[in-house]
């Protein structure tokens, strides 16, 4: 029996979707269930539904992958967060900018048990800033009360990781071997405050993440699935469940990443622009070599500035439920949302929407047609449809990077708003199962890792080599097949004001998941 089916789950704010795909990427089963308060009930319903559809083939499921916005929601709602003791190494450098500077006060108060800026850290050339203050660390831990986890952020630790590792050992030696210690080098690249913010957030999310990983393990065990479990992360790659429990903050952007990758996969395109037209918004993104293109701008999560690499998503206030003002002609941003089946003209309701506008020219809703409308209303709706299409075309052009041949993959319930020909894009593709693209994206994720190095320009090749090896190791640690991992992205940034020309290289490696079925059966 071949055990090559993957089960993808997406836990969104409203729906929990699940799909099963085979080794060729064909969708064999899919479902949409409401997300439950306890997470577990929704996951249980979704997984149970697709397994029922699979019937006798269910033992062939060898992997379960989950993507979720749960961590983001916990930060935004300031709910179930752990308390963190934040240590920074490198004082007196950076003491003008204490930890959690600029956080929303309510969130900082919830998360921070205490902070210390202590001796340690390195300069860009590797010179120690100050001697490591080991006693200071022990004193801080003794003086700080009521904390669940410790975060450690050393200046230039992404370029020289040893000191943070030593401090982790020191903390465990002081507090006990099971102390939860999170190191900034595992979370992000240079950019001290953003990396520290992310490390503290990560430490605060431990319990929330564990509730989701445990929910998944519970359901998988209940169903008797002999399957390896994974989490999807921001860049469209997977982490092992153990890894996700340690680095939950890296799952924060997985929802949009999965949606983009899933839609592209369903269409068969490796390079594509994807537009997901919902009831209220249209979200557009780009897939390059099967990965979502990442934004390089700093991102805020719940008011906290971080430097995660997140999918470059462009959101427009254009959806199937978007309200058309018949007096001013304004299109949105208001939407009737899920009330469309009672509010829209097509359904005998009082509100003109973009779905009604589309009905002038096509049949967006099977078996429904517009009532008789005054000529002026028809003209307004017609103009609104033009306006919506113009905004969508502008967004497509913006994302196309000058390439007019990228296919445009359309998914989502409002996809009829996108015409069959769009200037600035190649063929318009409308794949089946587009409504569960999120879960498909989770099911087809690769395992990946990223690593950074700063080096002199003379040693650039060696630095790329070292960063590549570190990235490959991270990818394998995250579950990738060691024989199939490849470097997929190299970014170089020049560093000025040094005595020698210096570059920062950032390397990403990724590969398909190792076949774990055999190992699990062994």
């Amino acid at each position, binding site marked *: 029996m071949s055990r090559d089916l993957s089960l993808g789950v997406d836990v969104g704010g409203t729906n929990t979707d699940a799909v099963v795909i085979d080794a060729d990427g064909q969708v064999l089963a899919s479902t949409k269930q409401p997300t439950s308060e306890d997470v577990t009930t929704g996951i249980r319903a979704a997984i149970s539904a697709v397994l029922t559809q699979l019937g006798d083939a269910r033992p062939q499921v060898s992997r379960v992958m989950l993507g979720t916005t749960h961590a983001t929601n916990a930060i935004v709602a300031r709910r179930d967060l752990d308390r963190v003791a934040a240590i920074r190494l*490198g*004082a*007196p*450098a*950076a*003491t*003008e*900018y204490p930890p959690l*500077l*600029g956080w929303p006060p309510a969130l900082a108060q919830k998360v921070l048990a205490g902070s210390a800026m202590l001796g340690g*850290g390195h*300069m*860009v*050339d590797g*010179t120690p*800033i*100050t001697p490591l203050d080991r006693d200071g660390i022990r004193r801080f831990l003794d003086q700080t009360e009521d904390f669940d986890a410790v975060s450690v952020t050393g*200046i*230039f630790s992404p370029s020289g990781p040893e000191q943070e590792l030593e401090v982790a050992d020191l903390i465990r030696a002081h507090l006990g071997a099971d102390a939860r210690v999170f190191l900034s080098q595992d979370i992000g690249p*240079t*950019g*001290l*405050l953003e990396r520290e913010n992310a490390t503290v957030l990560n430490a605060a999310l431990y319990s929330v993440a564990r509730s989701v990983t445990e929910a998944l393990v519970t359901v998988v065990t209940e169903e008797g699935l002999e399957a390896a479990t994974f989490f999807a992360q921001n860049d469209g790659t997977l982490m092992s469940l153990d890894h996700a429990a340690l680095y939950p903050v890296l799952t924060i952007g997985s929802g949009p990443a999965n949606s983009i990758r899933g839609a592209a996969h369903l269409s068969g395109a490796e390079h594509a622009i994807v537009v997901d037209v919902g009831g209220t918004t249209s979200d557009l993104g780009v897939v390059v070599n099967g990965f979502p293109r990442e934004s*390089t*701008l*700093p991102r805020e999560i719940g008011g906290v*500035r971080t430097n995660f690499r997140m999918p470059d998503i462009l959101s427009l206030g254009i959806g199937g439920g978007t309200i058309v003002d018949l007096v001013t002609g304004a299109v949105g941003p208001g939407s009737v949302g899920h009330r469309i089946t009672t509010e829209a003209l097509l359904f005998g309701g009082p509100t003109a929407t973009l779905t009604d506008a589309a009905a002038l020219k096509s049949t967006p809703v099977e078996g429904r047609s517009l009532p008789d409308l005054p000529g002026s209303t028809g003209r307004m709706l017609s103009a609104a449809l033009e306006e919506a299409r113009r905004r969508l075309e502008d967004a497509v*052009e*913006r*994302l*196309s*990077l*000058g390439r007019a041949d990228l296919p445009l993959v359309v998914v989502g319930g409002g996809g009829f708003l996108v015409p069959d020909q769009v200037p600035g894009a190649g063929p318009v593709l409308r794949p089946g199962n587009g409504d569960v693209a999120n879960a498909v994206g989770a099911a087809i994720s690769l395992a990946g890792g990223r690593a950074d190095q700063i080096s002199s320009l003379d040693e650039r090749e060696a630095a790329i080599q070292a960063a590549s090896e570190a990235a490959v190791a991270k990818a394998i640690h995250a579950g990738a097949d060691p024989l199939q991992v490849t470097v997929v992205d190299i970014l170089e*940034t*020049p*560093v*000025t*004001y*040094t*005595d020698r*020309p210096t570059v*920062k290289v950032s390397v990403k490696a990724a590969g398909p998941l190792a076949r774990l079925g055999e190992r699990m059966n062994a």
Partner: protein
Amino acid sequence: MVMPMAHTSPAAAPGAFVAASDVAALAAGAAVFGTGGGGAVHTSQVVAEQALQEHGPVPLVTVDDLGPDDLVMLMSGIGAPTVGIEMLSSRHQIDLLVREAQIAAGRPITTLMAAEIGGSNGVGPVGWAARLGLKLLDADGMGRAFPSAAMVSMNVAELPCDFAILSDVVGNVSVIKTIDLHWLERHARALTVASGSICLGAHYPMTAETARGAVVEGTVSAAIRVGHALLSAADPVQAVAAELNGAILLTGKITDLDRRTEDGFARGSVTIAGTGADRGRLQRLELQNENLVVLEDGEVLVSVPDNVTIIDAETGQAISTEMLRYGQRVAVLAWACDPIWRTPRGLELAGPAAFGYDLDYVPFKEINR
């Protein structure tokens, strides 16, 4: 009509202050004055806001307000932006700097001034002034951002720099006395590298007498006004252009980006294709840390020392050269430099030739398209 900024920007009114609530506008405005460089303003903004909340508003004074007992120091952060985002300044770095400057000057420093209003260097001094209980001069040494310490208005005015002080993150302080600004830059650069590629600096001690005609006046209040326009206007792009008496040369999207590093500077070019009413037009900008030259159809539209900033086509927020990305929707904003840069010595120091461009400087005029 050409309306140089110093003339269109009324200097700070008597009793003027910069309050914590002005810092966001100052930061947004300073980013516009960064002309593509000057460093990201965000962290400086957060720290300056906190300093003003703790210590209260900072008196914003003009050159006319300065008395015989006043002594002004020019303040700046020096170093590599890629290091500056990781090894940030220490809490006592600025105190050490000013204390040492007072010893070197032999009298109290009363007033701080930003070396360049563009970017993070334009935001930091207000917070430092608050913490040290000093005044802030409504002026800077550039009226924009430039890559070299020699490209300051005091140098145009041939004002000698008596001394410079550098302080680093661990507390090393250096007093530098050089024969001219080029040597100062060379020594400051070597010391900065020794300090981990990032330092704070104070130089150009000035009195009321020597500051007059040697600084670019009104730029702090101008940055705050530009920032307020940007943050509150219904059409921020047009509001920012109007506030600067400048023009939007083109609205479009970035269709090509070419970046490389030469001699320690980020050099390159960006191509912007017009959209909407500008469809069919194409402009190329030459960059060296800052935006230096705008070309269209082989002709130079604007060149350094006049100011060019690429701003977001919707929000009007300045986009620094390292944040430029393919496909961004942008507007090219240009406005006239301070008249001091249009003098023969100003052009010698910071005209096109100073950046290696073989072209004649044509003063930018407001263009109504």
